[in-house]
């Protein structure tokens, strides 16, 4: 069972993997930049996907993410579209069978949102997470 604390640590570890000088120093800093200024969304999204890679132990996941706020009605802020594909089988795990869209759009504004997003993707991979994390 993957806990909330473990996900929070994985997010910071993931963020440290691709930290570059001049960018926010921690995942929480990147979140602040994203919610306050609308920048660094790619860093937030990349940390979330990398945390899923770390916690799932999978090296065969393929991701795409996109700052979705621009596409949303009324340009709603802080939305990120994620697509997750199992590269071995080509199965798109985020496919919405009703709307026929390959992406899920998640609002990421707080650490809780980011942790819930990681929990959601882990659940798509059939990895048990704390029940309170499920979206």
């Amino acid at each position, binding site marked *: 069972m993957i806990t909330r604390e473990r996900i929070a640590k994985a997010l910071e570890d993931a963020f440290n993997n691709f930290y570059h000088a001049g960018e926010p120093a921690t995942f929480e800093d990147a979140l602040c930049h994203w919610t306050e200024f609308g920048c660094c969304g790619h860093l937030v999204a990349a940390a979330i996907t990398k945390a899923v890679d770390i916690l799932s132990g999978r*090296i*065969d996941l*393929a*991701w*795409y993410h*996109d700052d979705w706020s*621009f596409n949303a009605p009324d340009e709603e802020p802080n939305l990120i*579209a994620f*697509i997750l*594909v199992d*590269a071995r*089988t*080509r*199965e*798109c795990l985020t*496919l*919405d*069978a009703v709307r*026929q*869209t*390959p*992406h899920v759009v998640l609002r990421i504004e707080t650490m809780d949102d980011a942790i819930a997003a990681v929990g959601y993707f882990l659940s798509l991979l059939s990895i048990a997470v704390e029940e309170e994390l499920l979206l």
Partner: protein
Amino acid sequence: MITRERIKRTLNEIYNAEYGDGENEATIGDGITFWLQNCEYPFDVIETIVEAVYELSGKPRNALGWHIEPLRDEWSYTGEIAFVLVDAESGRCLTLQRFDRPETEACIAVALPITTEEEAIDAVAHFLRLLGVPVEECVPENAS
């Protein structure tokens, strides 16, 4: 075999029907030029390309899932559009590209330049091939 000429005709018929004013013929090339000059989200170009793929492949609307993102740099659109295409029935991602080494990340999207009518035709041809529809190869004009 679907020819490039047929793709071109289909793109322009769809574009003109949706965005023409009834007097002057509107072409996909007009839409692309407007997009790149005015830096506005190219809904018209994207919808025309997708619509042409449905029309030429004969696929029903609920058969395909698309995610489409016009790529931007810091200041403006780059002229490339990223496409993710999923077969909604099987759930398989048709645009997935795997690389030789297993530890190398696979890529879900294809980024295609859409700066001319010819490139829009190339894009439609690319998606038709992914759907198993035979399409005429592009032969350079100077080929012997």
